[in-house]
């Protein structure tokens, strides 16, 4: 009798397994096709319709308050050189596509930088101005303004040459268990992506929408802030924002997001 029951259960499981492909949507009919690239998909796909609606309308998206402020800063001279961003770069539209290649090794200094660090490097070396603080409204706004110029363009970072060691370091971090819960980034964002963790659907942890306006934060926030939150959740040590570890992880996940469109500034709950 036990075996018979088991057989019935097995048949049910088989039927369920067979039914799954019927739900898989055809790429042509998928309204979210633009937010997918092969196996990878943006957090926009796992997000709920109400936050998507806010992201889709630049008036509703509060991130643009920061963008407006940054656009003012763009033309404001600062530092000992008395120059503004616009004095070298002209219109900010000249940076179209630039953000898709970051993080990368800076040609002039040989240092490895993401967009935030590049902005601060520009301020220090070209303008003679103090760097913006991590997570300051100025740095968040300027990063968003720069990345916004590449909105819709596919992420495309180079992991060869001098960038390779950063990629390797990031990959190692990503697959290393840490914290009291002994979890690696990959445990949630690769092994269990799409599954529920209590009421929350686990995303792939893609970086293409950062800085993001997060409802929980009630403000714009950076990728490194999100990583600090992740590490805190697994009861691991929160590492330094814009530090080497998170920069390496950013490299790995930016490579993983290759082909996904830059969505900055995204809106997430």
């Amino acid at each position, binding site marked *: 009798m036990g075996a018979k029951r088991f057989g019935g259960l097995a048949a049910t499981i088989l039927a369920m397994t067979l039914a799954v492909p019927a739900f898989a949507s055809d790429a042509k009919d998928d309204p979210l096709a633009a937010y997918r690239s092969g196996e990878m998909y943006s957090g926009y796909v796992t997000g709920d319709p109400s936050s998507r609606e806010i992201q889709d309308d630049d008036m509703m998206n509060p991130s643009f308050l920061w963008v407006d402020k940054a656009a003012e800063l763009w033309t404001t001279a600062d530092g000992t050189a008395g120059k503004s961003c616009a004095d070298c770069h002209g219109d900010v539209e000249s940076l179209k596509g630039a953000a898709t290649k970051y993080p990368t090794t800076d040609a002039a200094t040989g240092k490895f930088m993401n967009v935030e660090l590049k902005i601060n490097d520009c301020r220090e070396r070209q303008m003679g101005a103090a760097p913006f603080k991590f997570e300051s409204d100025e740095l968040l706004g300027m990063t968003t303004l720069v990345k916004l110029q590449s909105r819709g363009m596919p992420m495309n970072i180079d992991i060869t040459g001098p960038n390779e060691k950063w990629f390797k370091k990031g990959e190692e971090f990503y697959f290393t268990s840490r914290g009291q819960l002994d979890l690696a980034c990959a445990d949630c964002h690769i092994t269990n992506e799409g599954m529920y963790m209590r009421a929350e659907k686990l995303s792939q942890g893609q970086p293409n929408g950062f800085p993001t306006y997060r409802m929980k934060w*009630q403000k714009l926030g950076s990728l490194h802030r999100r990583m600090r939150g992740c590490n805190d959740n697994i009861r691991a040590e929160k590492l330094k924002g814009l530090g080497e570890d998170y920069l390496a992880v950013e490299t790995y996940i930016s490579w993983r997001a290759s082909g996904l469109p830059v969505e900055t500034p995204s809106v997430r709950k």
Partner: protein
Amino acid sequence: MSAKPRVRVPSTAKKGEVFEIKTVISHSMESGQRKAADGSPIPRKIIDKFVCTYNGKEVMTSQWYGAVSANPYLEFFCTATESGTLEFTWHDEGGETYTATADIKVT
């Protein structure tokens, strides 16, 4: 952060047409529930009143209470009567006011 409020009003409208207005303002909407690093409570400071005037005439007013998010967004409709200026004013509990204006041409 103190960015200028963002408002969107169509630049032109036909007389009698109902048009949409979208506004968003940068405000922390401090709830009064939070504590500072030293444990002392942070006093509540939220926007509690919003007023929109059309050529000086009040066309929309709104009272706000707790539980409104930071950087609140408001969307409403208005009937085009004459060319002129729409003025938007947000009043917060600290006595501060924030204003924005937009022009509309009615044909």
